[in-house]
């Protein structure tokens, strides 16, 4: 457990209860989105984690340790921090900005520079071109990138991000979101991400904590939040109905993955393992000699038998190229499967539809809706 909030409460001296007994846990490497309307306490909750706002009740544990017992500046130097207003230091170059926390930690100059170069490349900026520029010479999107790079400066295990892509145009925002997700796959930080944008939450979050008036309403995966809302407030806030309508307009064939690794049922389990390693994945679709869909096989099951057909999970849940996405999605949710095979009338495998694909389609639909 990287971050654990236990009945965290914030009461201001004037009696306002900004955050009331909020508890949730974030696993290492997870991206947790704090979502809610303005004034719901999400930013306050985030700022209590790095103690920018002092906690008045409950406990926050970082890596098992009580955060209030740590030195607050040490704590903050080990938690990357990126905010909507970016707050780049205008009198420092991009390189110096990124090197701020490393310099606080006493890294030698050469190491700081090397780190700044790496991070600039990581966020997709040419380090040679930008490292000596000043923030005032950058565009809004570039500033946001530098802001993220700066938060990663000393390679902290935890990142706090307060609407980091908030202040930029929608097109750049989508690009930065995509890029950041890609970066996160590599760096696997534990991230608390604050936003008021439900679509951003669905797109970015492994988990979403939806807050209202200082209280945690639902803490769940994006899918459950969308399709198993706990109460009316959640339903209204996520606007599941609207999103679903958007999905009705898209058919599986428009979004499915068609090139996919398969294995025949008669092959040896060992062969399946090799293929998985080659492709860098941990599951394969099992087909018969005619290319008809039979089921799935996962890495964990491979050791249980000699032939693929002995260890595979047969399944009859399939969709066709013409299934509309909202139906596919409810099928997924009811079966608990993360991937659905796309088959023709004679059960021949044509592709795969994953939850990630639907999620992506959902954000695209909503963004199209927003720009209209």
């Amino acid at each position: 457990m990287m971050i654990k909030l236990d009945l965290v409460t914030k009461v201001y001296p004037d009696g306002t209860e900004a955050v009331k007994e909020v508890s949730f846990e974030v696993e290492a490497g997870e991206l947790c989105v704090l979502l809610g309307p303005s004034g719901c306490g999400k930013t306050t909750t985030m700022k209590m984690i790095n103690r920018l706002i002092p906690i008045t009740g409950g406990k926050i544990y970082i890596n098992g340790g009580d955060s209030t017992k740590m030195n607050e500046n040490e704590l903050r130097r080990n938690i990357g921090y990126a905010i909507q207003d970016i707050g780049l230091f205008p009198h420092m170059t991009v390189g110096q900005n990124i090197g701020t926390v490393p310099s606080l930690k006493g890294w030698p100059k050469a190491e700081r520079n090397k780190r700044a170069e790496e991070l600039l490349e990581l966020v997709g900026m040419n380090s040679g071109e930008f490292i000596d520029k000043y923030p005032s010479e950058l565009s809004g999107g570039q500033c946001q990138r530098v802001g993220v790079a700066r938060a990663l400066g000393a390679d902290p295990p935890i990142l706090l991000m307060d609407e980091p892509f908030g202040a930029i145009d929608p097109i750049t925002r989508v690009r930065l979101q995509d890029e950041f997700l890609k970066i996160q796959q590599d760096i696997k930080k534990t991230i608390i991400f604050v936003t008021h944008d439900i679509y951003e939450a669905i797109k970015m979050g492994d988990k979403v904590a939806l807050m209202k008036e200082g209280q945690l309403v639902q803490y769940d995966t994006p899918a459950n939040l969308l399709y198993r809302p706990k109460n009316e407030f959640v339903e209204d806030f996520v606007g599941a109905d609207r999103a679903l309508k958007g999905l009705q307009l898209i058919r599986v064939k428009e979004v499915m993955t068609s090139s996919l690794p398969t294995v025949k049922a008669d092959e040896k389990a060992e062969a399946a393992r090799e293929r998985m390693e080659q492709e860098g994945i941990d599951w394969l679709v099992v087909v018969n000699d005619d290319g008809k869909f039979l089921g799935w096989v996962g890495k964990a099951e491979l050791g249980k038998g000699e032939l693929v057909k002995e260890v595979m999970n047969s399944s009859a849940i399939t969709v066709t190229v013409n299934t509309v996405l909202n139906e596919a999605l409810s099928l997924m949710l009811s079966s608990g499967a993360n991937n659905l095979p796309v088959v023709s009338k004679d059960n021949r495998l044509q592709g795969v539809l994953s939850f990630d694909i639907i999620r992506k389609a959902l954000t695209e639909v909503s963004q199209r809706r927003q720009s209209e």
Partner: protein
Amino acid sequence: MRRRVILIGLLMLLVGLTIWITNLEWIKEGVYKPFTWGDIMSATISHLEMVVIAELIAISIGVPLGILVTRPGLRRLATPVVGGVGVGQTIPSLAVIAIMAPLLGFGLNSAIVALFIYGLLPIVRNSYAGINNIDSAIVEAARGMGMTRGQIARKIELPLALPVIMTGIRISTVITVGTAELAVLVGGKGLGLITLTGVFSMQPLTILQGAAPTAALAITLGFILERIENSMTSRGLKVKAAMA
């Protein structure tokens, strides 16, 4: 470039005027005893002396005062201090100087105190504004990154406020050079003695013998301080100004 030409032209005009008057033959034969080069030089030096002393005191009190009232514990003092500065700047310089006579009597000290008080105002105002106008997101980012209070002040707030503080010092100095002419009325020394001799004898040429070098001094000091200000400003802040 154009600005440099204007500046140098104006300076040459003022210095030329001084030279011309001082070398005029007929004024030497007239009723009024003209001032010599020696007089002007020593007056310029004592003028500068008075200005420098007053400014050094004003800076050493004004900068810390302006900065201190931005600190959390002393923030409630900001309104009265800044308000007081505003009122002070509205009061004519002549009134501030003249009032020293009944308060402190005539003498060099009264003159310096008057100059110090009047010079203090722009310095306090700019020191306060320089720190107070820093984008709060910048300070929050610094806090969030784990900088201590001292580090934030040293690495973020002071460098960002420095150009504004320097502007305050420049404005104050230039104003003080001018007001120092009047400070002679309560016992000051310097070029004002020459100017006022001219004023009281209604001799415009003598007025200019004192006032033209004073103006040249003000312009030159303003220019030098502006250069210093520029060299102390981070390039990152200048680029912004150029783009705005």
